[in-house]
């Protein structure tokens, strides 16, 4: 038989579906210890015993088949559509042994759709700590299924699960509950109107349209002899269904599960009492943040300097080792400094991802959600918005996709609109280099001023997000109501492998993603900076030698003057000076202006762009930092990067909407150009204003 078996992984959020998916397929999809990590369908292949292959689909978590958010709807639409190419031959319902009761609700629903279903009880390693024991044969009998007791962490039960999947034909499809018990009369009518259809599926289709207004399904109404009920009545029936299901589950678990509270070590309650405390909770959060930023500084300065000087040597070596010519200078003055401007940030980026990943995996991030929930509501956001806001510290794009689990459209829209204020990893390089130039190195109570400035910038970004959310909440006229409870996952020791993988993956994505762009940009910039129109550019040597004829300059000094004169009159210099009037009030020169424009492609190319421009415009080799420190303000004299211009630049980057990819994602998620364009105009306009005020006040 050559046909692959379609296997869908379904389950409540945070039960370990993606961990099971990774264990089955050998892939490395993102796993994290809070609900709502997976928001899209992901696919992979798994080899089963006897040469059979399975096509595994990882799905977003859903609490029940009565979906109310976009990501949950993915699951229901798949299960209701037999013609979907991914329609599962067998559903693997993943549950978490600590929340079995709640998890079984979904399982019974899937069973009632008469899809062959296997129950995976995951996190079996936790049973010992929680004093849980299970009577598996009893559960299998009651639920009419096969159960795999799995721990993806200890790699237990995966072989058994594969075996069960390959024998999926033996699974019983008897439902757990008779759907007509919900309301006999109504279901009798349903059966008469649609004699050939599965009753429970009909019921789901109907309720789905009630819960989720976007399904475009009117066939039910179209059948004239069937009178459907009012929305309120249907909602009431849904509640009745849930109660019936829990009765069934309680009965099943009464004998199938025993919990010995004496052996349960409840570290969780004790920890939660401190970590979500009204005062201490915030203090601890604050201390953790400070530690992170201090560590980013302390741990990465050595590797950073090392990389910086290695690139200088590489550049020198290229220049001296290769035959002289245009391509050699493209390499030595364009590409190598440009790439260097990205690579020197690898240590910091890796540390940042390391901390984020540990906080996520340990379950602490969800406590932060809880801590903030009360405050967030005041700003028109729900507790769920904090997940995008926090994961936005890595990158706004996955963060904006993560908003799909916010049911309420208004809250979702607001979250999408304000998330780009969160300090993403692409801003980090700009912050780090500018801070190291303009903020003194001293310490106060063991905390560096530089680290504190960095933290302040993160807080400013977060504050900007909250304030704009509050304003949007007032302005946007969208009716909506909220009903959200934060689900608290359990504390877990972060899995070393998961943490390392996340750090490597994200750092790789950062370096290669940004690397490709800076490579292209540095080539283009080098070209524009090395060629120019007219006599000014082409006769630079003559012009300089006549100008300085009576000054007795050394040959080196002459070359230096020629290089910078050429740069000023190159294509790039001409463009730069055309935009200079717009940015001079902020304290920037035309070179920074070019870097600002090129960082619309991606913020992190700012430093690489400057490195390329400076390197074309000068004759000797220097590290990026020293070059920036040595730049002179063309108008005022003195260093270009002063406290005033530095702060102005930092604030500009904190607020400006400088990321085309984010705009594209916002367009996709809101399905309209209105929002991304507004975002661009308002954020960047505001950034300009603030940077202007800052420079004018501080200069």
């Amino acid at each position, binding site marked *: 038989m050559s046909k692959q078996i379609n296997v869908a992984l379904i389950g409540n959020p945070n039960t370990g579906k993606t961990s099971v998916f990774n264990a089955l397929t050998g892939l490395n999809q993102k796993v994290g210890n809070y609900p709502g990590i997976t928001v899209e369908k992901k696919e992979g292949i798994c080899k089963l015993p006897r040469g059979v292959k399975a096509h595994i689909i990882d799905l977003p978590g859903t609490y029940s088949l009565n979906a109310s958010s976009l990501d949950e709807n993915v699951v229901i639409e798949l299960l209701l559509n037999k013609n979907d190419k991914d329609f599962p031959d067998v559903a693997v319902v993943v549950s978490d042994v600590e929340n079995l009761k709640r998890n079984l609700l979904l399982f019974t629903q899937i069973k009632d759709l008469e899809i062959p279903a296997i129950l995976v009880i995951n996190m079996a390693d936790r049973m010992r700590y929680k004093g849980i024991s299970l009577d598996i044969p009893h559960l299998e009998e009651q639920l009419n299924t096969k159960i795999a007791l799995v721990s993806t962490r200890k790699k237990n039960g995966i072989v058994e699960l594969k075996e069960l999947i390959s024998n999926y034909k033996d699974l019983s499809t008897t439902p757990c509950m008779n759907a007509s018990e919900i309301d006999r009369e109504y279901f009798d009518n349903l059966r008469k109107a649609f004699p050939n259809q599965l009753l429970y599926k009909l019921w789901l289709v109907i309720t789905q349209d009630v819960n989720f207004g976007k399904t475009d399904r009117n066939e039910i109404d179209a059948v004239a002899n069937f009178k459907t009920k009012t929305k309120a009545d249907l909602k009431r029936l849904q509640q009745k269904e849930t109660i019936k299901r829990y009765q069934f589950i309680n009965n099943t678990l009464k004998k199938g599960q025993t919990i010995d509270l004496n052996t349960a070590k409840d570290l969780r309650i004790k920890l939660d009492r401190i970590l979500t405390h009204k005062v201490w909770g915030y203090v601890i959060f604050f201390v953790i943040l400070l530690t992170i930023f201090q560590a980013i500084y302390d741990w990465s300065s050595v590797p950073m300097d090392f990389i910086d000087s290695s690139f200088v040597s590489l550049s020198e070596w290229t220049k001296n080792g290769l035959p002289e010519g*245009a391509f050699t200078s*493209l390499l030595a003055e364009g590409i190598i400094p440009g790439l260097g401007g990205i690579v020197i940030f690898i240590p910091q980026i890796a540390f940042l991802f390391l901390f984020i990943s540990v906080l996520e995996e340990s379950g602490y991030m969800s406590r932060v959600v809880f801590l903030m929930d009360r405050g967030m509501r005041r700003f028109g956001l729900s507790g769920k918005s904090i997940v995008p806001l926090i994961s936005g510290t890595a990158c706004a*794009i996955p963060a904006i996709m993560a908003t799909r689990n916010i049911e309420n459209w208004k809250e979702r829209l607001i979250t999408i609109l304000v998330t780009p204020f969160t300090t993403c990893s692409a801003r980090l390089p700009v912050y780090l280099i500018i801070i190291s130039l303009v903020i003194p190195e001293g310490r106060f109570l063991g905390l560096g001023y530089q680290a504190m400035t960095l933290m302040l910038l993160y807080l400013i970004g977060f504050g900007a997000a909250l304030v704009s959310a509050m304003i949007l909440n007032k302005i946007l006229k969208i009716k909506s109501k909220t009903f959200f409870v934060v689900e608290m996952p359990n504390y877990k020791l972060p899995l070393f492998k998961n943490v390392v993988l996340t750090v490597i*993956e994200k750092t790789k*994505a950062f370096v290669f993603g940004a690397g490709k*762009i800076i490579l292209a940009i540095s*080539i283009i910039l080098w*070209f524009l900076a090395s060629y120019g129109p007219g006599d000014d550019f082409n006769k630079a040597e003559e012009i300089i030698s006549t100008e300085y004829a009576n000054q007795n300059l050394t040959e080196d000094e002459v070359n230096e003057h020629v290089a910078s004169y050429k740069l000023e009159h190159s294509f790039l210099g001409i463009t730069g000076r055309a935009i200079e009037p717009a940015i001079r009030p902020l304290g920037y020169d035309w070179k920074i202006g070019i870097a600002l424009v090129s960082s619309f492609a991606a913020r992190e190319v700012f430093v690489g762009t400057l490195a390329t421009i400076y390197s074309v415009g000068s004759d000797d080799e220097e590290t990026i930092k020293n070059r920036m420190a040595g730049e002179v303000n063309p108008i005022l004299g003195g260093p270009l990067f002063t406290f005033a211009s530095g702060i102005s630049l930092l604030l500009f980057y904190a607020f400006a909407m400088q990321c085309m990819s984010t705009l594209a*994602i916002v367009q996709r998620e809101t399905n309209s150009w209105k929002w991304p364009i507004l975002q661009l105009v308002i954020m960047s306009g505001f950034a300009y204003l603030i940077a202007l005020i800052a420079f004018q006040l501080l200069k």
Partner: protein
Amino acid sequence: MNEIIQTILVFIALGLAVSFMIKKFSWKKPKTKKAFSDAHDCDKCH
């Protein structure tokens, strides 16, 4: 001679760079990703 080769190389590099940037930022609707390709969630960020 050498100079001509170097110039040709420069223009090839320039052509590649420009076409890369155009491809990257011409707005096409991103397709849903599959885990088959080892595309990372953060792939579109840069």
